[in-house]
């Protein structure tokens, strides 16, 4: 497979060959798992109250990629999701919209129509999501379909088999090809499926590999495996985007996905962003939550802050 022309930045030359790429990725500082998890846990003890909590809840709502990725998805379900993304809280129009709705490629057109004019983006998973086990042609066709249907963002999965086998250049070439298929209109999120990469060293390497290949976002997981986003793997990816910008000047977003269900959890992730990558990432252009049930908990907490009372699950919409 011919190597596509790499994006131009300070690290472009590390992809000259499989061995230079391998040497670069293996030359990144190692990750001490105990220390990383201790740091994530310690940031998890921050106490976010009153005005800070209100700010964080609205910020978190605005960062949700409201997701439905089921075999049973129907146009009706996707339209309902789109309506919820535009007006998350029907009783309170001051609630911000979510960042995006995230659907399979065949639902992109329906989703696009549902959110039209609202500013809510449509993200589509592609590249034989979630396993990524298909020929490159098939993956690229998947991406082109979604983009043609109007997807603003593409969430691709990397070839974990190739990554674990050490074929980094193959993974790199695929990302570059998908990025090209996204064209100039769609932003690319690269999903590593961190639960399958298994070690923190691998997650750091995958992060840099994805960023060098031109990812606009690096994303933890598909939500389809046992271990998805955790504070520790997200912290690690936040360190990666911070360091990548320091080295290349290019800012890359981060999207933890799967397993974030409560406001408390979401706020912990925002604290990680605030104290690791910093203020510049506290914006839905640079940080997202891939989640579905999280939104309702955020809305209930938002109502609690506004009214002083807990409402309950019947006071938020179930779609």
């Amino acid at each position: 497979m011919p190597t596509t022309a790499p994006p131009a930045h300070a690290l472009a030359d590390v992809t000259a060959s499989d061995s230079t790429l391998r040497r670069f990725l293996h030359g990144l500082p190692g990750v001490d798992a105990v220390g990383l998890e201790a740091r994530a846990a310690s940031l998890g003890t921050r106490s976010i109250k009153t005005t800070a909590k209100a700010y964080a809840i609205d910020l978190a709502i605005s960062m949700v990629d409201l997701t439905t990725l089921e075999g049973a998805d129907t146009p009706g379900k996707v339209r309902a999701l789109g309506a919820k993304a535009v007006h998350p809280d029907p009783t309170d129009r001051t609630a911000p919209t979510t960042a995006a709705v995230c659907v399979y490629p065949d639902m992109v057109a329906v989703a696009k129509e549902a959110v039209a004019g609202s500013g809510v983006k449509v993200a589509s998973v592609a590249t034989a999501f979630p396993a990524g086990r298909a020929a490159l042609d098939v993956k690229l066709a998947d991406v082109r379909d979604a983009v043609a249907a109007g997807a603003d963002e593409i969430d691709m999965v990397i070839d974990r088999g190739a990554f674990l086998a050490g074929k980094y250049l193959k993974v790199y070439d695929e990302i570059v090809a998908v990025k090209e298929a996204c064209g100039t209109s769609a932003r690319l999120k690269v999903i590593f499926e961190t639960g399958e990469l298994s070690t923190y060293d691998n997650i750091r390497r995958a992060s840099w590999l994805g960023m060098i290949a031109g990812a606009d976002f690096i994303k933890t997981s598909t939500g389809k495996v046992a271990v998805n986003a955790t504070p520790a793997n997200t912290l690690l990816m936040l360190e990666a985007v911070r360091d990548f910008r320091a080295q290349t000047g290019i800012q890359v977003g981060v999207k933890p996905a799967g397993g974030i269900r409560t406001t408390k959890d979401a706020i912990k992730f925002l604290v990680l962003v605030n104290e690791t990558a910093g203020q510049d990432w506290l914006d839905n252009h640079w940080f997202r939550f891939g989640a579905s049930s999280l939104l309702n908990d955020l809305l209930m907490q938002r109502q609690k802050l506004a009214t002083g009372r807990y409402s309950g699950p019947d006071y938020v919409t179930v779609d």
Partner: protein
Amino acid sequence: MASAPAFEYAPAPESRSVVDIAPSYGLFIDGEFTDATGGKVFKTVSPSTEEVLSEVAEASAEDVDRAVKAARKAFEKWSALPGAERAKYLFRIARIIQERSRELAVLETLDNGKPIKETRDADLPLVAAHFFYYAGWADKLGHAGFGAEPRPLGVAGQVIPWNFPLLMLAWKIAPALATGNTVVLKPAETTPLSALFFADICRQAGLPKGVVNIVTGDGRTGAALVAHPDVNKVAFTGSTAVGKAIARTVAGTRKKLTLELGGKGANIVFDDAPIDQAVEGIVNGIFFNQGQVCCAGSRLLVQESVQDELLDALKRRLSTLRLGDPLDKNTDIGAINSAEQLARITALADAGEAEGAERWSPACELPGAGYWFAPTLFTNVTQAHTIAREEIFGPVLSVLSFRTPDEAVAKANNTQYGLSAGIWSEKGSRILAVASKLRAGVVWSNTFNKFDPTSPFGGYKESGFGREGGRHGLEAYLDV
């Protein structure tokens, strides 16, 4: 794109109402609170606000004598109890400490100035763990490697510092009681309150009278205690200067002595270190408890090839430290314990600057009242600088560089102290090779300031002698 307002954390103070501090406290002798003979008292203040918290009795030599007599009287029965019975009391104390941990954490934060985050997540859990651990030894002393039936020493006179008031009390009292000794303990002058609350816990646990006695006061009270002829064992944690004076006092007597003194720990970062975690370890090593830690990693030795990268990361990290109200749950850096200590830190930091080292602190506003010192970093430090040799006991880090592992070891060991050291490397063989050459009582690898009751702690050279914690910690309180 960065148009959103900053993520400012609203104040999140822990409530003071969980702790009820009396306007005055007496000495705890023979199971009762009693006034000092002569009625002398001193005030204890909150270092973060200078607010007076309480008045505490100042024990005279006469009071110390009363306390030692009470301990002597209690020793006969206490030492004769089966180990399993002593263990019951220790387990009970440990449980009460856990139950009252929030109250004690707030109290300790008020009296000491350290952040509630630390008292809640480090001090108090470790205090309870220490009592649980030694409770477990009380009926197994015959299996500890000190003979079939090792005997206690008698009355232990214990003098502890202000940096971890309740934790140092636990390190002293738990092994002493487990082995069958009785104790007279003098807490530090600036942090007497948690020891007095502990006295209340002893009563709550039904501990026999006289087994634990608390005498509050300044250095004179401590001197009277260690010089008392009927004390069999002296245990001291504190400064090297006072430790030397105690060693002179005890010399020529039959008293058994352990000293845990100062340190100038080297934290060695190799170029193959996990950099992000090393930064956390450096911060934890020198800014934990405002650097008022005898085993602090106050000298950073960094390999020249990663020095710039590491210092950039470290400075960025220091800029996120939150200094302020110690009771706020989001505070990382609290107050310095006393005006006296603040003056010492200030003088040493000024000496560092005067001798040509480059000083750096993150932008950080210090509160108006109370004793505060901004986290400080010195670069361009050499072995000849005062700040590389003397213990500062404050949030001041001296950064030195090295080129080879041999040079790192030579510099790390080139100190009159030898309490702690840290090694950061992802290469296991390097860690083992370097650790075996460091003359320090504790060597941490890829972590720093981690404590556990099962692990012995103590120093080489002027950092003292004897070990506290673990099986080794029993020896200091047994007649072996």
